Every structure is written in C-alpha cells, then in structure tokens.
C-alpha cells in the first residue's frame, strides 16, 4: 500500500504530530487561563470567539507582532540560539509516542532511552537562556532550573527503568501493548514518583522555582520579547502537552480505551492529566529551591529506588502471580510506604534546625 512507503509515512506522521503539538499548545493556553479562572472565582478569557476559544491564537499573534528587543551586552549568538535549543527537543519527544495501534512516527526499540536523552537537551537550552541575557535575575533562574532538572532526572529515570523491567521492552509501543491493565494500577508508587518529578521537569507549580514571578520576576525569560519570548512560551506549554501525553501513554494505558482503541482515549487521558496539573497549580504555593531539592533527594529518590527493587523482585521471583494479587499488594505497599516515609520526612523542616 502507498502509506506503507517509508517517506509517505514520515511526511504524514510528521505533519500530524506538528499539528497536534501546536493545536494543543494553543488550546492548553486557553484551557489554563479559563480553568484557573474558574478556580479563582473569576471568568477567565471569554471575549475572543465562542467561550474565548481563540484567545490562544490572539495571544500568539500579539506576541509575534511585538518588537524583538536584544539588550545591550548580551551573548548574541546564545541569545538567539537558546530559545530554539529549548524548543526543538520538546517537539522531538512526540516522535516515539504511539497514537493508535501501529501509528507513530518511528517505533524505536530504545524509545525510553530516546525520551530520557532528548528531554534533557531542553533543560540546557533553558539554562542558556538565563545565562545569555546578561541579567542577574535571569542567571539565578537559569541556575536554579538547571540544578532542579538534573536532580529530578534521577528519580524519573529510575521509575522509567522499573517500567522497562515490568513490561520487558524499551519500545514505547511495547510498553503500551503490555498494559493489559493501566500501569497506574500495577505500579501506583511509580506513578506518584514519575508525576511529581515530571512536574519539576516542566517547571509547574509547586516547582516553578526558575521563573517564580514573585522573587526573580520571570527568571530565565526576563529579557526575552517578541518571537523569542513566544518560543519560550511554546516551550512551557509544549512541555506540558508532551508530559501529559507521556503520562497518559506510560501509565494510563495510552491509546487503549475501555470501549475503543485509538487516538481518542489517549487525548481524553491527556486532557485529564493536564487538568490535574492545573488543579495543583491553582491550589499549592511554591516550594523554595532548596526545599524542592531536598524533596527530590530525600523523598523521591528513596521511593523510586524502592519501587525499582519491588518491581525487580516481582518480575524475577513471582512472574506468574495472579493480576489481582499484584494490584492489591502494590496499592497497599504504596499507601504504606508513602505514609511511613512522609512521617519521617517533612519537606524542608530539617533545614530550619541547622
């Protein structure tokens, strides 16, 4: 068939992915402003288009028409390059995500490693944004962000390893296919660790230490305007789109639905994950950078290690256990260990007694 041709497949899939990426960024901008509006007992944007649906497009047009200011004494090359460097890898992650049975850009057999590798490039770009703009606020933001990225990558990767052990494959397609029940039921602890650390990876509240507007104004993007600012804005929301898609794929069963399989269950799951992120954003205050670090090293890392051990023991010694026993044991174990560990550790409390 014509669509089995490699080049046709590449072109069509790439176009669909790019369309998906930008469409959901624009829609997420609208969703975020609208939903946060409801959380805060106000209306949110409702003037442009029905229900304010075209607000995202209007925002993009406005930002693109702005004057592009390059401050004096910046590192010109990095200043131009770093928004792109942050933006492109975010889009690249989507390449390995299956949207339906057999529909993805490439079915890499090392998909998980690809995701881990590509997603860390973006953090370098974001750090360089803060570094290049010759502004102390920007530099503080960049430094904070980089430290946080590096730390949270570790529990995240440990959780991904446990996923690989449990599914027996590194291909994302294989992981989705292996989920007869969604992974969130099999490995709730892994889900908790992954979700928290990816919140930190995409700089969402309560981990938005690198652009906290009340302290360092806008952090890494303080000097950016016009198209370059739009690029950083796209990074922020693009990361949210990609992260929601990844969580939906890895933990919520991906394209597998209750009644039908295909892109629609994936999209529903993705939007639910995003709404959950918004809920957190609307409720919680921000952690400081050192408390966010200690949360990572003292809370998430031990839990992720324990999760890895638990999964490895389950796969090695009890591979043929009935599903309901595994589910029951994992849920009980998760509740128990989170309860015990959070009794031992309160975020940042120990710092005050130094």
């Amino acid at each position, binding site marked *: 068939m014509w669509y089995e041709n490699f080049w046709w497949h590449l072109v069509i899939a790439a176009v669909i992915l790019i369309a998906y990426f930008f469409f959901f960024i624009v829609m997420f901008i609208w969703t975020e402003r609208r939903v946060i509006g409801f959380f805060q007992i106000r209306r949110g944007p409702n003037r442009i288009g029905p229900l304010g649906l075209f607000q995202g497009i209007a925002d993009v047009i406005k930002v693109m028409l702005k004057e592009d200011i390059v401050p004096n004494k910046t590192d010109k090359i990095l200043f131009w390059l770093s928004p792109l460097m942050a933006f492109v890898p975010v889009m690249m992650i989507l390449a390995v995500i299956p949207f339906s049975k057999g529909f993805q850009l490439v079915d890499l057999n090392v998909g998980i490693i690809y995701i881990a590798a590509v997603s860390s490039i973006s953090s370098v770009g974001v750090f360089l944004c803060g570094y290049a703009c010759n502004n102390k606020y920007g530099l503080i933001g960049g430094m904070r962000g980089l430290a946080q990225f590096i730390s949270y990558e570790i529990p995240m990767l440990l959780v991904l390893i446990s996923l690989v052990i449990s599914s027996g494959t590194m291909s994302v397609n294989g992981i989705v296919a292996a989920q007869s029940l969604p992974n969130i039921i099999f490995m709730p602890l892994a889900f908790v660790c992954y979700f928290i650390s990816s919140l930190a990876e995409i700089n969402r509240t309560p981990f938005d230490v690198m652009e906290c507007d009340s302290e360092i104004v806008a952090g890494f993007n303080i000097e950016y305007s016009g198209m370059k600012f739009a690029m950083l804005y796209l990074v922020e929301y693009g990361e949210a789109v990609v992260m929601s898609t990844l969580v939906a794929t890895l933990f919520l069963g991906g394209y597998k639905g209750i009644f039908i399989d295909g892109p629609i269950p994936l999209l529903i799951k993705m939007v639910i994950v995003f709404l959950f992120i918004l809920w957190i954003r609307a409720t*919680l205050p921000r952690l400081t950078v050192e408390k966010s670090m200690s949360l990572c090293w003292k809370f998430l890392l031990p839990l992720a290690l324990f999760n890895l051990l638990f999964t490895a023991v389950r796969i090695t010694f009890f591979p043929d256990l009935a599903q309901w026993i595994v589910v029951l044991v994992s849920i009980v174990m998760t509740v128990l260990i989170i309860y015990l560990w959070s009794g031992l550790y309160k975020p940042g409390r120990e710092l005050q007694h130094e």
Partner: protein
Amino acid sequence: MSFKTEEYVLNVGPQHPSTHGVFRMRITLDGEIVKDVEPIFGYLHRGVEKLMEMRTYKQGIPMTDRLDYVSAINNNWPYVMAVEELAGIEVPEKAEYMRVIMAEMQRISSHYLAVGSQMNDMGSFYTVFMYMFREREKLTDLMEMVTGQRMMYNYMRFGGVSQDFPKEFVPLLRKFLRIFPKYMKEYEDLLYDNEIYLSRTKGVGILTREDAINISTSGPVLRSAGVDFDVRRDLPYSIYNKFKFDVPVGKNGDVYDRVWIRMEEMKQSASIIEQALDMMPAEGKYQTKVPVVLHVPEGKTYKRIESPRGILGCYLESDGSDKPYRCHFRAPAFINLTALKKLMVGQTLSDAIITFGSVDLSMGEVDR
C-alpha cells in the same frame, strides 16, 4: 584552574512584583543567601506632612487618607483625635461607635489584603488572593454605601463622622458577619493543613523579642515576637474599653505567626463590630457642629491608635491659626521596616521575599 565565588548585588525594586509598591532594596547575595540588605526609601514621597501645614485643618483630612491607602479610615482617626483634643471638641457617643465599626471593618479588609498578597509572594498564583477579595469586595461595597468611596474613604470629621449609616447598612453588615466565620474556616483549612505552606513559613524570618522591642516595632510584627501589647486594650482610646476582645500573641516571631495573628485579629475585629452594633445607641447625633473655619488654640499633642500595621501616631502642633504649625505621623510600617536587616540577612532569597511581605507595608505610609 581554580574556582572562586564572589558576592553580587541584586537590585530588587522599585518595580518588582513583591515589593508592594515602589520600594527598593539592594540585596547582596552569596549564591542564594542574603548577606546584606540596604533599603532605599522615598520613591513615593509626596510631602504630605508639609502639604498639611499649608492647608486648613479640615483640608488636612483628605491628606491623611492618602497616607496608607489600604486603611484610610484608620489614618483619619489619630489626626482627627488630635485636633479634637486641641480644639476641645466633644464627640457624640453614637459617632464613636460608628468610628469603631468603620475602623474595624477597615482592619478586616486590610488584613485580607495582607494575607492574600502574602500568599501571592509565596507563589500560590492569586488563588487565595482572589478568594480573599471576594469578601473584601463585600466590605468595600458596605463602606462605599456609607462613605461614597471605594478606596480612600474620607469619613471622619472633627466631632464625629461625615454622614450617618444608611438604613440598609446595618442588616447587610450583620449578614456579612454571619457568613464571615464560614469563610475564615475555609482559609484556615487551606493554609494550616498545607505542608508546603507550613514548611515555607515556620521558622522563617524570625524576629526575637528583644529586637522587636528595641527596634520599637508594633502591630502584628511586635505581637508575633511574643510581646502582648495592643494600643486598643492597653492604652484605650475612643470607646475601646467597652469591648471585650482577645489580643492574639505569637510565640516564635516567624512568618507563620504573623499570618496567624492577622487571621485571628480579623475574627476579633468581627466580634468587636458585633458588640458595637449591639451597643450602639439608635438615636443621637453623628456629628457636633464645628465652625467652618476652625481656629485651634495654641498647643501640641500626640495621639496614637492601633492601625492594622501597628501604632499609628499623629503629633500635632498648633500656633493658634487655622492651619497646623506641624503635623507629623508615626507610620507603623516605616518603623517596622527598620527591622528589615535583622529579618532578612542570612536567609535565602525566596525566604527573604516572603519575610519582607509579612511585614505588610504600604508605601504611601512609609514615604509619606
């Protein structure tokens, strides 16, 4: 190759989201740790005290509203009291009750703003702020009903207040007081059960008892340090000795205590308003007649009240003409700000910012 670190200076303000106005700090940072703070005042200086010397006594009242623009009625009060004492003007009993009711409403609305913007500094992205403005809006509507203004209420006059309560006002105020505890419960659940909030505020920005007294701080900043002092109770002015209310006192002098004290004070203010509404005489004048051009006899006086930010004093000196010879205000936020170095040095930048917010300043009052 050897690495070395050096301290650097960060200019926070005058345009910055968390300086609550146009305040500027030169913060010397070592990484994230604050090594030194140099506050720079004066970006909002309008010369209010000098301007008052060039206006008649009555024209001075609107100047006082503009001092602390989030608690205007409290600012009217010490000036009006000082002029009344010098000129020997009697205030009718009903007017005293009306003053207390309005001032306590103003205190609640000011504390709403303080706690809300404190949570904003903490990065909760306007959620608590918007919810607190839901109630503050109701209070603002009520006060608009009485004074005709929504922000800089110019309500007090020599010998009373500018106008009587309209008849719809008291039932609506009572309705607000009925739903008020329910809202407070909501905020207490939201704040005090939140682990992130606790970890950010407990033990942050500690001011010791000795420092608090030596710097002569006042208001919630003083009481958070464990000093049990409230002008309303200890040096009662107006008719405050008729009401029963508690003065919340903190233990550790940290940000948590300051927010907690503001939340408790709101409840106490609500109870004072309730008592005042019950005790207020139904009939009576709300204003005594004073001459249009008021000549105040020679003399000087100092009057102080407990404003939402602390002790607000007014020193007034008269030379017998129709204009004050000297009028000076002891602005609570200005004096609380002198504790800034003690509060901020040694903390991280994030903690320093919320500590700064917990002093609850308004620049109109600091720079005058």
